[in-house]
Each structure stands twice: as structure tokens, then as C-alpha cells.
């Protein structure tokens, strides 16, 4: 068992210990039943009084009732602990996911992470519940029944003890194979879910390009492979149970043969033979359960390994050990010789940039020049591979993550909303409050007028990922969400691309007041958006190629001026045509 899983189990050691004790008690009680039967059979043969039989019958019922009572508590303790452990691991799993860095999620499929949280945890729950319960019960039962068999007749017991270990042999032989094949099945199951998830999420593309048949064909291949792997597993695992029954039946036949001779020879009584049979039957369920438990254990351990690969992945971005927690950040940002690479592919090189607190900085540059990457270094979605990013003169890697991110309002390029009410989404980053800040933010982002038109207003539920809103509404909702946090640093990553020019103008106008006292970074392609900034930074191929104000850059006649000219050129042509009319 993995050390981590053991830790969870030990956390419930009281429940397990009580469970063991109850299991012992229940075993002790149940081995008396065959003994009662023996007394009855021998009594009948000896011609005892019927009163004795009635007494034995009553004892039989009494023992069963007490045993039942104990078994109830035993199950509740052991299986309950299993469920609680599932609960704990699931909580820890989610907590760990929340600590993992952005890059992790970009390289792991959502469907796969979900399968672990649901299916694998279910298997683990069975391992630490039913699995542990029956493992120990089997040991107790085996010891108790085995010992009693020896007290009845050692040679007869020896016969049983020679045959039964074959059961273990079958497990070892089949178990390893079952385990391997089961993992292959699980793997294919993950592929299937991931593929389905992708198809459903991208259904618009599938339909727009009439890819339905191609998709179905792909599913067919994955599905068939899944079926074949499952059948391979069935061929192996299907043998387990029948093999158990065969071995146990063999033992019964041997006992009947040997025991019959012993009774005739007068070594044991018929009652003792019946008692012996009783023990053999008692062993049969635990023995069969052993096969089942072996599978549960195998599957559970495999699942635990899958969970552990996640729990063991270290968050690349974590709270520093001795973090600095400033009262309030001023919002001064500095990039000091920053370089960055995704998996060894350089994206940013030698970036040096100083942004005074309260300044408004625009970042422009061609697609893929590294704008998004640059700004995501500030809230530490990624850490630079070289150099340092400083906020208020402190390396962000030394700042407490909560303090750092708490003072940043970032509007990502792609809008993501939760399937909550609009209100819930806008207040996402706000602790407490009466909602006035949210309303104000919605005003600033020019979302409020449209919300007023919704029948449910702020209580409107947006669909998963905000699908029921238009692109512009979504973007404005994400802007409002960031504003509602009242951040010291505001970052807009191409956040106005889906709104029309008039709305953009209105938003910028409303934002101006907001940005006057805060540091703001705005990424945009529209000159109209960036021209008013205190500083315009032009990125090209991961480097800063120019910086300055709109006028300075225009005058310097570089890349920015070039962009500007291109945007203007057509207008100029059109305008000339217009004025010539």
C-alpha cells in the first residue's frame, strides 16, 4: 500500500481498530454455530431428549442475533471509514489542483482529471472499505476455523490446509494479468471520455465543417478498442470465480472421503464431521471473497497511483516560504532583464521595463510576439526563466501569492465565466460586500444597461462558460469582474476586441477615471485604444522594439508609426474619396 494511502487509513485507526475488534468477535461467535450443529447431530444419534434439541435451536438463534448486531456495527465502522477516506482524498485532490500552475492544466486533459476524481476515487474507496474489511475478516476466519479443524481431527485438517492454498496460487497467477489488463481498459476509458468531451465542446466546429461522419468513425475506432480490451480482461477475470468454486468443492470432496473413513473407523463422530463441514463452508465465502478482494486491491492501488501522480506534481508556482505581505501595493512594476521560454522555446528575451505606480501602459505588437505571456508574468501565472519581475521593488516570487494576485485585476484574452448568476460571476473576486461595488463595476464596464434589459437582471444564470451571452457581453462581464476587485493593477489583455467601437469608447471613457489612480496595462491592436497611454510598448518577436508615447513613437517613425500608417492609409484613401464627392 502506498505510504500516502496508509496515512489516510491511519487517520481513521480508531474506526479500523474497533472494526477489527468487532470482526474478531463476530468470527468468534460464528464458529460456535457448527459446534451447535455437531451437538445436535450427535444428540440425535445418541437418542437424546427432544428438549435438548429445542435448547440447541434457541442457542443457534441467539448466537445469530448477537452476531448480526455486531456485524452491523462492524460494517458501519469499516465501510464508513472507507467512505470518509474517499471524501478526504477528494477534498485534498481538489485542493491540490487549485495549487497547481497554469502550465499543468495546459498539458493535462480536463476529462482525465475528472475521471480521477470520480472513477479512481470510487475504486480507492472500495479498497479501503470493502477491501480492508474482507482481507482481515478472511484472515480471522481462516485462523479460527483452521484451528478448530485441527482440534477436531488433525489429518482431516491437513487435507484442507493442503488444498486451500491453491486458492492463493490462482490469485497470484491470474491477479497480475488482471491488474495489467484492467489498467489498459482504464486507459482506453480515459481516451474515450476525453474524446467525447472534446467533441461536445467543439460541436460548432464539428457541424460547421460537416465532420459528423468523421467524428463517428473516430469514435468507432476508440470504442472498438475499448471493447476488445474489456473482453481481454473478461477472459482472464472470468476464470477467477469458477476456479475458486472448483478448489473449494475439491476440498469438500476430500473431506467427505477422508472424514467418512474417520467416522467409520471411530476416530471422530458424525457430528464432528458435520461440524467440520460447517467450518469448510464458513471458509468458502472468505476464500471466494479473497479473489474479489484481490481485484479490488489491485484496482484500488492502480487508481491510487493515478491520483498520486497528480498529488505528487509539484506546483511550479507556490507561496514563497518567507513571503512578504505588504499592506497595500503601490503598483509599481519592473521587468528586469526578463526572459521566458515555454518548454525551451524562447518567447521573451531581455525585457527591461519600468512602470511607475499609477501609469497607464499600452502593449502592442504582432500576434505571437509575447504580449499575453509578458503580462501573465505579473500575477505569476508563469515565472520568468531568466531575470526578475518586481512589484513595488520586490521580486514577485517573494511576495505572498494572495497579496500579489489580490491587487491585480486581469481580464484575459479569452472570456471565461462560470455557470452561476451574473451577480455571482461579477462578485467572483470580491469578499463580502453589499454588491454596490459589483453594480458600480458593471456600470463602468457598460454592462449595466444590458443587464437592466434581462428579465432576471443580475440573477440571470449564464450557461456553462457563459455560452448564453454574446461575445461582447461576456467580455464586458469579465472586465466588470476584474474591476469589482478594486485592484491596484489592472491588466486588459485584448479585452475589448469583441465590443463595438462605441461601447469601447464608452468603456475607455469610464475606465479613465478608474485608471487615473491605478497602474494599468492594456494590450490592444486598435490604435484608438492605446493612443492615450502614458507609455506605449511595442513588442516584436519577444523583445521590446520601441517604447514611448504616441507622439514620440509616431515621430520616431518605427514599427508603431508603421502600424499607425497602415491603419490610417485606407482611411485616408476613403476619406479623400468622401471629401472629393
Amino acid at each position, binding site marked *: 500500500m502506498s505510504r500516502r494511502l496508509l496515512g489516510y487509513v491511519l487517520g481513521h485507526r480508531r474506526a479500523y481498530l474497533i472494526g477489527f475488534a468487532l470482526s474478531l468477535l463476530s468470527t468468534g461467535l460464528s464458529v460456535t454455530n457448527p459446534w451447535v450443529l455437531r451437538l445436535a447431530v450427535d444428540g440425535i444419534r445418541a437418542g437424546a431428549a427432544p428438549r435438548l434439541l429445542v435448547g440447541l435451536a434457541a442457542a443457534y438463534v441467539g448466537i445469530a442475533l448477537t452476531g448480526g448486531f455486531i456485524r452491523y456495527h462492524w460494517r458501519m465502522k469499516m465501510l464508513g471509514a472507507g467512505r470518509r477516506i474517499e471524501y478526504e482524498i477528494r477534498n485534498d485532490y481538489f485542493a491540490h489542483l487549485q495549487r497547481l500552475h497554469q502550465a499543468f492544466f495546459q498539458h493535462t486533459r480536463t476529462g482525465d482529471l475528472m475521471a480521477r476524481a470520480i472513477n479512481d476515487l470510487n475504486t480507492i474507496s472500495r479498497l479501503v472499505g470493502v477491501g480492508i474489511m474482507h482481507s482481515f475478516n478472511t484472515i480471522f476466519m481462516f485462523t479460527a476455523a483452521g484451528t478448530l479443524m485441527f482440534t477436531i481431527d488433525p489429518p482431516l485438517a491437513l487435507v484442507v490446509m493442503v488444498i486451500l492454498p491453491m486458492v492463493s496460487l490462482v490469485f497470484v497467477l491470474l491477479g497480475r494479468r488482471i491488474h495489467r489488463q484492467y489498467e489498459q481498459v482504464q486507459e482506453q476509458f480515459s481516451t474515450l471520455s476525453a474524446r467525447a468531451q472534446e467533441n461536445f465542446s467543439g460541436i460548432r466546429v464539428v457541424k460547421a465543417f460537416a465532420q459528423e461522419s468523421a467524428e463517428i468513425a473516430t469514435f468507432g475506432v476508440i470504442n472498438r478498442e475499448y471493447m476488445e480490451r474489456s473482453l481481454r480482461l473478461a477472459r482472464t477475470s472470468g476464470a477467477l470465480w469458477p476456479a475458486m468454486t472448483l478448489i473449494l468443492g475439491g476440498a469438500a470432496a476430500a473431506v467427505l472421503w477422508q472424514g467418512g473413513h474417520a467416522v467409520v473407523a471411530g476416530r471422530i463422530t458424525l457430528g464432528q464431521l458435520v461440524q467440520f463441514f460447517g467450518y469448510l463452508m464458513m471458509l468458502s465465502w472468505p476464500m471466494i471473497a479473497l479473489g474479489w478482494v484481490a481485484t479490488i486491491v489491485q484496482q484500488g492501488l492502480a487508481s491510487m497511483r493515478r491520483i498520486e501522480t497528480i498529488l505528487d506534481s509539484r506546483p511550479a508556482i507556490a507561496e514563497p516560504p518567507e513571503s512578504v505581505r505588504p499592506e497595500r501595493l503601490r503598483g509599481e512594476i519592473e521587468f528586469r532583464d526578463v526572459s521566458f521560454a515555454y518548454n525551451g522555446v524562447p518567447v521573451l528575451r531581455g525585457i527591461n521595463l519600468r512602470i511607475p505606480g499609477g501609469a497607464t501602459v499600452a502593449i502592442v505588437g504582432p500576434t505571437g510576439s509575447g504580449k499575453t505571456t509578458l503580462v501573465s508574468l505579473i500575477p505569476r501565472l508563469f515565472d520568468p526563466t531568466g531575470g526578475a519581475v518586481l512589484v513595488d521593488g520586490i521580486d514577485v516570487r517573494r511576495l505572498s501569492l494572495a497579496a500579489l494576485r489580490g491587487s491585480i485585476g486581469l481580464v484575459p484574452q479569452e472570456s471565461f465565466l*462560470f455557470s452561476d448568476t451574473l451577480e455571482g460571476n461579477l462578485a467572483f473576486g470580491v469578499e463580502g460586500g453589499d454588491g454596490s461595488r459589483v453594480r458600480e463595476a458593471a456600470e463602468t464596464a457598460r454592462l449595466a444597461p444590458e443587464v437592466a434589459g434581462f428579465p432576471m437582471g443580475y440573477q440571470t444564470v449564464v450557461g456553462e462558460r457563459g455560452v448564453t451571452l454574446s461575445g461582447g457581453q461576456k467580455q464586458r462581464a469579465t472586465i466588470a469582474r476584474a474591476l469589482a476587485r478594486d485592484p491596484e493593477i489592472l491588466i486588459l489583455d485584448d479585452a475589448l476586441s469583441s465590443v463595438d467601437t462605441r461601447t469601447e469608447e464608452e468603456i475607455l471613457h469610464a475606465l479613465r477615471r478608474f485608471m487615473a489612480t491605478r497602474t494599468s496595462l492594456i494590450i490592444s491592436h486598435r490604435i484608438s485604444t492605446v493612443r492615450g497611454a502614458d507609455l506605449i510598448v511595442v513588442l516584436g518577436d519577444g523583445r521590446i522594439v520601441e517604447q514611448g508615447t504616441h507622439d514620440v513613437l509616431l515621430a520616431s517613425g518605427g514599427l508603431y508609426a508603421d502600424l499607425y500608417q497602415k491603419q490610417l492609409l485606407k482611411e485616408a484613401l476613403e476619406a479623400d474619396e468622401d471629401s472629393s464627392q
Partner: protein
Amino acid sequence: MSTAFHEDEIIGAAYDARLMRRLMGYVRPYRAAVALAVVLLLLTSAASLVGPYIVRIAIDDHITPGRLEGLGVVILAYLGALTAAFVLRYAQTYMMARVGQHAMYDLRMELLTHLQRLSVGFYTRQPVGRLVTRVTNDIEALNEMITQGVVAIFGDLVTLVGIVAILLYLDWRLALATMLVLPAIILFTARFRAVAREAYRAIRVRLARINAFLNEHIMGMGIVQLFGREAREQARFEELNREHLVAGMASLRSFAVFHPVVGAMSAVAVAIIIAYGGAQALAGTISVGLVVAFVQYAQRFFEPIEDLAEKYNILQAAMASSERLFRLLDEPIEVEDPPAPLRADRVRGEIEFRNVWFAYESVPEHDWVLRDVSFRILPGESVAFVGHTGAGKSSIINLITRFYDPQQGCVLVDGSDVRGWDQRDLRRHIGLVLQDVFLFAGTIEDNIRLGTSSITSEQVRRAAEFVNAARFIERIPGGYQAQVQERGSTLSGGQKQLIAFARAIAHNPEVLLVLDEATSSVDTDTEILIQDALGRVMQNRTSIIIAHRLSTIQHVDRILVIHKGRIAEEGTHRELLSRGGIYTKLYHLQYRDQELRHDT
């Protein structure tokens, strides 16, 4: 949190004849295998019931009288029965696994095929996580039912009946006395079933909520972290998880009560045999061997009963799952092809809207998204839609591509109502590039080609070059063969748009090209390159462009200004400018810079 949105539908009764009949439809193609399995099962049951009977013969005929010759033959017969049972049971298990897996394969394919036909509107209403559960876990539950549920329940029943028959045959009086406990057991089991069912439903519903929560939060983890919501999301998750735990404990309790109670009742039956049977044996009316055999049969009698209760859970699960599956299979295809759909090898590319009223909601009164929209786009014409966000531009596209159908009026392509077309065929003529780019796991080349195997690598490359995507693709390690991570998270927004654009070009729609804000994330340089490409593609093609940057659309033949779901203005760039309406305002806002320069 909108629980209503995530609530997994509550489920019906455990056994429902209608559902069962429909389920059995999936087994029907394999009925020969099932029949064989049933025969094997009957034989297995018979073989496994001989044990106590053999014990009785051994005791009464050989051990009690002390006559050992012949005992060997009896035991050999027993071993023979055991071996037969082994082979039969293995064969039967494997047969059923085959049937289960094949039925599951069929059902899964049917479901996926149906899902591909459901409308886009359907997908906006369903959380993706829920649909994934349908095609994975729900179908799995069905397999369990076939392999472990139905056949095993049948096997248990056969065993029960077999034991009763043997007991009656051995001694009917003692048999009846033993079965005195039966009514109590039946009553108790019925009660247990009701409780177990409730507990089971609760578990399912809560698990579905956890699923939906996880799906959403894993996708939006970046937002959670940026907004420092970890602690609160953790609390919400733990709450959902706790509800699931509570439901699990309730289910546990019902089973923890059930097993001991059945055990106690079985003890009562054995006690009756000891007291009553024992008295008979003392009186010499029956043999000791018979009493022993009775005890052994009685103990076996309760195993299938306990088993049945567990199997009931599987049945319950399968019924619940199949009800959800069938509901999904019965989900009407809102956007359906007509019986004899129109197919065309080529289209001219004429598009017409005739008095179209459209709303996303089924009760639209207040929520019309398009109001009485009529226009006509001639073959080869290029048209732009402009207007504020939420004006209804994308919705118009949704109607042309028939992602949705209008409530009133009609949309015509080449003079025929799109509702008369074969949808897939219609869309094959349309190249659609959307603002939200969706990329699939696979290489960049796969993403451009999608599943259209007739597109060669050469064509993929040409398309990429055409839209100027080749430059950046070739710089990525691996180039066209580079793997795209989930949803293209390692590419920049503009790069994704270029790929989507290349995808549309590679599929070479002959006539219609529709760009819905497809260049909003592209920098001016790239946009100019795309424009240049567009100029070439748009020749001889009907094209529709939606863009906020007016520079993107200046060269189109005609501009339609959409305002609050209506067509407010229409004309060429110059006509609209001279009209001094909405367009003029939009234009001036965007080009103030330029005007400033003119002023100075």
C-alpha cells in the same frame, strides 16, 4: 450556483417494463449467445446443487451403516459435477461478457451518432460534463446489468427454485416448516429495496453535481487562482463532497441492517430444522443425513436472497442510467433534415432572409433577437454586418448555417429554404470562421484538415500559406506535426484564429465564406496579410464578414447595419457615410485620429 442547471435528472422505478423492453432490444442481436448462456446457467445451477445431496447419500448409505465401498464412486461423481460446473460457469461468464460488451458498443455508437445530429442549441443547454457521463459511465452501468444483473438474478432465482424443489422432494413437511420464515423475508426485502433505492438516487444526483463542478473549475482554474478564490471554491467543493458522503453513509446503513437481519432469519430456519427435523429423526421418521442435507440447503437458500438484494442495486443503477440514456436518445432533433433533403454539388451562393423573427428562447415574446429581418445577398457579392455587440449579427450567421431555425419567416439559399437542405451538405458549402476558435487535440495539420481525409498535406500547407499562418507554424518545433494542447492553450489568440482561417480555406468552400469577428485578435500586420488573402478568396465567392474594425470591411460590396435585431441601414460604405446614421457614428468614433489629422 445554479443547481437546477446541473441537477442530474431524477430517476424512475427500478424495474420498468417499458425500459426493460427497450433495453432488451440491444441484446436481441445476440440472442443466440444469450440463449446459450442461459442453458449454461441452468446446468451450472444444477451442478452446484448436488453437493448437499451427495453428503446425504454419503452419510445415510455409507458412513452411518459403515459401508465404505461405493463411497469412492459417489465422490468421483461429485468431482465430475464440480469440474462440469467450472467449465460451464466460465463459459457462461465469458458469453455474457461478450454480449454485454457488444451491446454496450452498439448503444454507445447509437448515442454518439444521435448526439452528432442534435442541434447547437441543445449543446448550449447541456453541461458538457453531463453528456460525457452519459456516453461513459451510464453506458457502463448498462453493461454491468447485462453481465451481472439480469443473468445473475435469473441464476439466483433458478437456484432458489431448485433448492425449494429439492427440499420438497426430500421431505415436504420439513420443507414447509423451514419455509415458515419466507413471508417475513419477503416483506423485509421489499422494505429494504425502497430504502436502498432512495439512497442510491441521492448518491447519483450528488455525484453528478461534483462532476459538473469539477469540469467547470478545472477549465476555469486560471480564473479561480487569479481571483484568489481557492479557499471559497474549496469550501463549495467540500460541501458538495460532504453531501455525497452523507448519501453514501445512508446507503451503507441500509445494507448494514439488511445483511444481519437476513442472517438472523436464516438462523431461525436452521433452528426449526434442528428442533423439528431433529425430533423427527429421533422418532426415526427421517434419517440424520437428511437433517444435515436440509441444514446445508437452508444455509444456501439465503445466499441468493442476499445476493438478489445487491443485484437489485445494479438493476437500479442500470434502470436509472438507461432512463437517462433513452431520454437523450429521444431528445428531438430540433434542426432536422427533411425526408427528401436537397443536395447540391454546387451552389450559386444566393442568400435571402424573408421576414425572419428569431429568439433563442422557446417563449420569445420579450426576447426577440432578430425582428422581421429581410435581405438578399446576390451570388458572388460580399456583404458586411456591422452593429453593436448583442445586435444580432452572430445570430444571423447561426441561421444561415442552420445551427438554429427561425420562429417565423424563412432563410433561403439559392432560392430554397434551408430547412429543405441536407444540413451537412449545406454547411459543406460554407466556410465558417468564428471568433472563439476551437482546436482539437492532435497536430496543427490535423486541426486544419479535421476529419476530411481527402485534404492532402500539400493542401494543408497551401491553405496555411494563403492565410499567412505558415510563417509561425514553421517556427514552432515540429511545425505542422506539432501537437496542439487541449484547446490550443499553448498558442496565442491570433495564432489560433489564423489556424481556424486556414481550416476554412483548406475545406475550400466554393461559394460561401462567413467570417464572424474572425480577425479581432490578429494584429494589424497580420490582418493586412489576411485581408490581402481575403481579397483573393472573396472573388467569385459570396462572403459575409462581421468585424468591428471598419477597416476590415471597407471593400465589401454592401454593408448592412444591424441595430437591436433589425436592419437599420444598408448600402455601400460611401452611401452609408453620406446618410449620417449609425454607421457614420461608428465610423467617426473609430477614425477620429484620421479626422484630427485632416483638421490640422
